[in-house]
């Protein structure tokens, strides 16, 4: 049934519409209705008025304690008449001049709402950003009528402009919390000292790729929100300057930093009162129906999964020194996801270590990553230098001074790929932070869980981050699959040319195909029917007879690999062919490991 309702443009309209909640729900479920709403991620704040309808896509980074607000309150005017004002979806009290609120009125209703600190998807690659920007409706300043009144530039020391976050010049990993603490001895009139830096407030997980932040206030279904999940919110923007704690005359210095963290300037971190929520299964904007796709893309016909698979495999083989096996494994890695979780295990994870990389290839890892960056919607490349390990914040930690969960590199949305480059590791000593960093990484790889430090205890949060480690020898981190590369000598010489050729091969249309393929493969289902379990068991028994050392982990690895190989080829059920392919590949992989020169580290598999 087509929905005849229009999206509300002010909170009062929404209040009226909520009387008919079923229709409103239908309206919000229809993804095409979301096309016309501007994306806060890509629209500069000075183009948006307070209380307009906007959207924000991002990852929930932190959750605050509940707020109790006046949902409905009575307003008395000078001549004695009263009216009832709805307070939902607003931060500030709404009164005309000469009106006063009656705090003690019987009709006042208090409601509860929660604030989520949402950052734009960390590690979102440039092509995704570009594409989302294209899909976002443009706002014409002229059509707004009046220019927004509130000052964009503040006179407060240390304040930065709202949207120019991408241009931030800070490349250090340290997160400066207290920029300057000047005690003002002058009387009223001088600007107050700004205690918390904007970088600290924005709290980007990846400091050298800063994210935009937004404080989203939700009004119902509080328990359904999970940390680190990708969500798209629709609601009313709230950018009143009075929301900024820094502008106020606060004598209570004790909670000052906490107040500032909880109420940053709305031009740095806007507020959004959400009434429509969509949990995103993936970050790929090409396959998101709620974004208005540019027409050129919709018209293209889409080739079969198998054809795309062949092309992609060929591309990867080209980039990996002509090693076919490596291409298969890398492809499986690119479509892997944790599809099931039991108490002890995360099933489906595929941490891959490509070792035995040729030593004389300059910056190969970065070049390989450049290709991967073009294919994946969100990823992050991290050189494992001593400096990085010793100084970067990896796991989130709660700062009790400001009551904020300070983010870390590993706080990433599901399916954000992490590429760790061990080839840039040098000799040196790992300090305490570095040791913890390695422990966190190992924990993430083994369990797909992120430990957050709450000072008195640590809490594990589920993660779904595929990790790719590139190393010359054996990696110091654990992996599910260690694959030494057998580099063809000729390919090593021609590696630069090969990579250039790969870039040429990646025409826009082909890129779109690959990008869609990877996300579709990742989110597709897969079945293993009963008849095959017999075969699997038998094969496993044979395997154990041949090699006593093989164990349940090996079987597990085989199952994961065969599932991914099947999905890659466009299949949705298990069959003998993929199983045999998987056993063949695994056997070859083990052979290669055996053939490696024995080094000091003992690795499993």
């Amino acid at each position: 049934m087509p929905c005849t309702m229009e999206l509300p443009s002010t909170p009062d309209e929404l209040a009226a519409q909520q009387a008919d909640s079923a229709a409103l729900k239908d309206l919000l479920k229809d993804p095409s209705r979301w096309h016309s709403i501007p994306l806060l991620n890509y629209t500069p704040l000075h183009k948006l008025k307070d209380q307009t309808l906007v959207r924000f896509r991002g990852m929930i980074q932190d959750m605050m304690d509940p707020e109790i607000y006046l949902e409905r309150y009575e307003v008395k005017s000078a001549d004695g008449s009263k009216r009832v004002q709805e307070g939902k979806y607003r931060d500030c009290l709404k009164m005309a001049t000469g009106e006063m609120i009656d705090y003690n009125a019987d009709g006042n209703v208090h409601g509860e709402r929660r604030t989520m600190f949402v950052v734009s998807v960390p590690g979102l690659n440039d092509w995704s950003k570009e594409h989302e920007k294209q899909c976002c409706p443009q706002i014409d300043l002229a059509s707004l009528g009046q220019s927004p009144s509130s000052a964009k530039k503040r006179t407060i020391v240390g304040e930065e402009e709202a949207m120019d976050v991408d241009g931030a010049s800070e490349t250090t990993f340290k997160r400066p919390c207290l920029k300057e603490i000047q005690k003002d001895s002058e009387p009223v009139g001088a600007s107050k000292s700004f205690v918390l830096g904007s970088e600290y407030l924005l709290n980007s997980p990846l400091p050298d790729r800063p994210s935009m932040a937004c404080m989203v206030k939700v009004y119902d279904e509080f328990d359904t929100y999970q940390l680190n999940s990708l969500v798209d919110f629709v609601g009313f923007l709230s950018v009143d300057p009075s929301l900024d704690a820094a502008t106020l005359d606060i004598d209570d210095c004790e909670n000052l930093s906490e107040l500032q963290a909880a109420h940053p300037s709305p031009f740095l971190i806007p507020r959004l009162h959400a009434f429509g929520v969509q949990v995103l299964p993936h970050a790929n904007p090409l396959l998101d129906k709620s974004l208005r796709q540019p027409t050129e893309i919709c018209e293209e016909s889409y080739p079969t999964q198998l054809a795309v698979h062949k092309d992609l495999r060929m591309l990867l083989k080209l980039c990996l020194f002509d090693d076919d096996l490596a291409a298969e494994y890398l492809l499986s890695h690119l479509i892997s996801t944790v599809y099931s979780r039991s108490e002890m295990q995360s099933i489906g994870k595929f941490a891959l270590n490509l070792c035995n990389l040729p030593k004389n290839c300059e910056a190969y890892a970065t070049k390989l990553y450049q290709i991967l960056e073009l294919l994946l919607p969100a990823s992050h490349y991290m050189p494992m230098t001593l400096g990085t390990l010793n100084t970067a914040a990896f796991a989130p930690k709660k700062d009790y001074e400001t009551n904020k969960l300070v983010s870390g590199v590993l706080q990433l949305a599901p399916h954000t790929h992490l590429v760790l480059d061990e080839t840039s590791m040098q000799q040196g000593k790992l300090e305490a932070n570095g040791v913890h960093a390695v422990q966190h990484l190992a924990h993430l790889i083994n369990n797909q869980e992120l430990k957050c430090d709450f000072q008195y205890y640590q809490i594990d949060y589920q993660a779904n981050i595929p990790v790719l480690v590139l190393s010359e020898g054996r990696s110091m981190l654990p992996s599910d699959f260690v694959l030494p590369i057998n580099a063809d000598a000729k390919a090593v010489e021609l590696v630069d040319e090969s990579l250039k050729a790969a870039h040429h091969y990646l025409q826009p249309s082909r890129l779109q195909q690959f990008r869609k393929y990877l996300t579709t493969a990742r989110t597709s289902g897969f079945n293993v029917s009963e008849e095959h379990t017999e075969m699997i068991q038998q094969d496993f028994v044979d395997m154990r007879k041949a090699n006593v050392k093989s164990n349940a982990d090996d079987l597990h690895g085989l199952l994961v690999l065969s599932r991914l190989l099947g999905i890659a080829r466009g299949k949705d059920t298990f069959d003998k062919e993929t199983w045999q392919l998987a056993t063949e590949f695994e056997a070859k992989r083990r052979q290669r490991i055996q053939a490696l020169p024995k080094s000091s580290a003992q690795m499993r598999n």
Partner: protein
Amino acid sequence: MARRDYAQDRESIKTFLSEFCKCDDDGKKEFVYGSQLVKLAHREQVLITIDLDDLAEFNESLAEAVVDNCRRYTSIFSDVIAELLPSYKQQEVHAKDALDVYIEHRLMMESRTRNPMEQRDERNSFPSELMKRFEVGFKPVSTEKAHSIREVKAQHIGKLVTVRGIVTRCTEVKPMMVVATYTCDRCGSETYQPVNSLSFTPVHDCPSDDCRVNKAGGRLYLQTRGSKFVKFQEVKMQEHSDQVPVGHIPRSMTIMCRGEVTRMAQPGDHIVVSGVFLPLMRTGFAQMIQGLLSETFLQAHRIICINKNDEDFGPGMQS
């Protein structure tokens, strides 16, 4: 919920406090609260804890009402105790601090100079808060389980709840003004201002009859020595890791401790707190937003520290 007759409740509370007794092992009758009242009268004890188990034995509906509307009953109890105290005084009490001396002198002056027919301004007569030198706390029923912080919701506002958690931060103990005393520079009378919240606006003009009638316009000056202060500490508490559902952040709660409940917890302690869950209108933050948001806090009546080993004892039991 039927409206309760507070006058009737006061009478039953009076009876409860003076007559409630427990049989000892030896068969001797022990007046639990009677003996505490004696101690209070002699200033040997400051905090009197009313065990709701005992109150439930005495009168069930009253105990339930206390839990439901705890704040009101706290003030009723303290009024009743203030009435009963003079009769429990068995010997002369020596003044313990400056405020005691003030109170003594005030009472003396009043008995000398006061004309019973004269109308006295509310604020010039002694507020009951000023004269009380004890505190009332409630011990919840032993069958009550400790909640986790996220279970305490808006429906619990005004009620006595028990919460379990771990202390993350505490402020230092500071004196909080409960009754502000002012002296007028013209007529010399004292004016009192009871303070119920965390901040207050000082009174400027003397409301006494002398100054009002003569329009002498005396200014008031705050006297810290004659004012009443209580110890005050704000403690922030966080949920235990096992109480946090999957994918959520631990919730925290603010606890306000007054008087004897201060200094009972250090950061890192596992505690069980029982107290009244109340809203707090924060003053001083932007006029526009202040009205829109309230914060909630727990006004502690009892804090028990539990170590990790003792957790299986269960909350609410005497440590």
